């Protein structure tokens, strides 16, 4: 049987490449226009840098020897009270043989790798998103179940919560949570930030879970109940495991949004990736570079997460 004639795809790829090159060129021209001077070399230090750390002598005494050992020097201090000599490794020596040294005097500097503010901010973003995602999942599961409950009180509360959260901006919720609830309950800003994010994402997850549960055919519950399973056992063994598989893709989308939305907690002075970026810019003036880098970091985290969830999804597809 003859297949349908398929036009060649390569001209379209060529066009795609041309457009991408065009966009890049446009960007370059635009930065030329504003006379922006790219200083990408300034960026790496904000991930990690070598810090100069003064090497202090733990004892009072006299410098008795300085041994060179490649880039390193060993300053030997003989204590005044006649104890065993102390060897202090340094990279730049600031004393000479015979110098008198007090306790806690610096004998030189050595260098240590320190993580920079971008890495720190990234880490804060990741763990805040993780914790609030986890709490939000729990809130969403409970609320989702209340939402479809036969009990009018539970259902009413769930609807009220979902509507309140979905009908107001996250930024406003963060402010309310921080300035009102946070003050009343005397919450740490991190706790307030995580709380606001968890409540926010919980409302959306509740709707995802409700839809997931309702997408499972009634016959499943009927079969389970006809075997004598309780409503709880039916949920735990039959409905939720199947619903979970179905809600994985929308949940993944929600968690990815959460990572991005978490940037809003920077308004209550939590030093997440976004706030770190802002702080670095005030010091470095590498505005474009830092914002591009920050964007790229968010992109990396969200792509990794979507890969992970994609893999999970495939594992759960086993029984199809």
């Amino acid at each position, binding site marked *: 049987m003859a297949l349908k004639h398929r036009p060649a795809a390569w001209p379209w790829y060529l066009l795609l490449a041309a457009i991408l090159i065009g966009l890049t060129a446009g960007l370059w021209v635009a930065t030329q226009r504003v006379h922006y001077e790219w200083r990408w070399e300034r960026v790496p230090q904000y991930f990690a840098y070598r810090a100069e750390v003064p090497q202090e002598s733990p004892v009072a005494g006299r410098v008795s020897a300085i041994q060179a050992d490649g880039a390193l020097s060993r300053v030997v201090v003989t204590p005044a009270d006649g104890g065993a000599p102390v060897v202090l490794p340094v990279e730049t020596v600031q004393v000479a043989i015979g110098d008198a040294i007090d306790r806690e005097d610096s004998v030189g500097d050595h260098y240590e790798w320190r993580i920079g503010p971008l890495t720190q901010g990234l880490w804060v973003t990741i763990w805040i998103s993780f914790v609030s995602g986890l709490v939000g999942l729990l809130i969403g599961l409970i609320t989702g179940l209340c939402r479809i409950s036969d009990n009018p009180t539970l259902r009413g509360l769930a609807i009220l919560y979902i509507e309140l959260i979905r009908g107001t901006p996250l930024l406003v919720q963060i402010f309310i949570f921080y300035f009102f609830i946070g003050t009343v309950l005397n919450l740490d800003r991190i706790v307030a930030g995580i709380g606001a994010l968890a409540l926010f994402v919980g409302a959306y997850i509740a709707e995802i879970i409700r839809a997931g549960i309702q997408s499972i055919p009634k016959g*499943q519950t009927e*079969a*389970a109940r006809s*075997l*004598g399973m309780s409503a709880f*056992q039916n949920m735990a063994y039959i409905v939720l495991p199947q619903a979970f598989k179905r809600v994985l893709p929308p949940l993944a989308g929600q968690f990815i949004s959460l990572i991005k939305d978490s940037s809003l907690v920077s308004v209550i002075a939590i030093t997440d990736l976004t706030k770190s970026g802002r702080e670095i810019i005030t010091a470095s003036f590498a505005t474009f570079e830092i914002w591009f880098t920050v964007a790229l970091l968010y992109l990396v985290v969200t792509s990794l997460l979507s890969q992970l969830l994609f893999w999970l999804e495939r594992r759960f597809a086993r*029984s199809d």
Partner: protein
Amino acid sequence: MIEVKNLLKVFEGRGQPVRAVDDVSTAVAMGEVVVIVGPSGSGKSTFLRCLNGLEEFDDGQVLIDGIDIAGSKTNLNTVRREVGMVFQHFNLFPHKTVLENLTLAQRVVRKRKAGEANERAMALLTKVGIAEKANEYPSRLSGGQQQRVAIARALAMDPKVMLFDEPTSALDPEMVGEVLDVMKQLAREGMTMAVVTHEMGFAREVAQRVLFMDAGRILEDAPPAQFFTAPQEPRAQAFLKQVL
């Protein structure tokens, strides 16, 4: 085994309320096979689903083995262990293997140990002729195989009564026989059964009584020989003319 007294089930729809089961009284003795027939929408499924409380009825009484299933002291889950049900669309658990479909309720409801549950499950799968599919997921099975698994799943709870709601209606014709064979064997072994079906051959061969339902009422209750040859009610006569 099953006693039904003045059962009433009304569906309050948007339009007229429907009396899906309208003042039905009947009984199924131990070891008896009762086939329920009737036109579409006559309330057969609803009646059957009232028997294990899947449908909450509005009035009347259902006694299973002497226990009032709607009684205030009755735990419906305990009653349902004794009443197996087989559905038109099988309703197997798609996320569980065939074996797990049979063992889950044994373990969480009957509290059987894994070994015991597996043994019972394998014995039943052998009996319905699909032991070799024990570790497959239901989606890999044909309709007839799935329905046999569903029957085995219900039997795994060692019920005293089995309810069948059109167990062969969703099957390709060539698979109807294999499911009916399993049901016939079950009947021969003395299982108490209430079967809604359009398989008149099955009714004739296996049933002790045939109930004819129309508009929520049992219009005729007779042994198959009598029902199929000399139905009393004009509506039963019209129905038989259509299906035979």
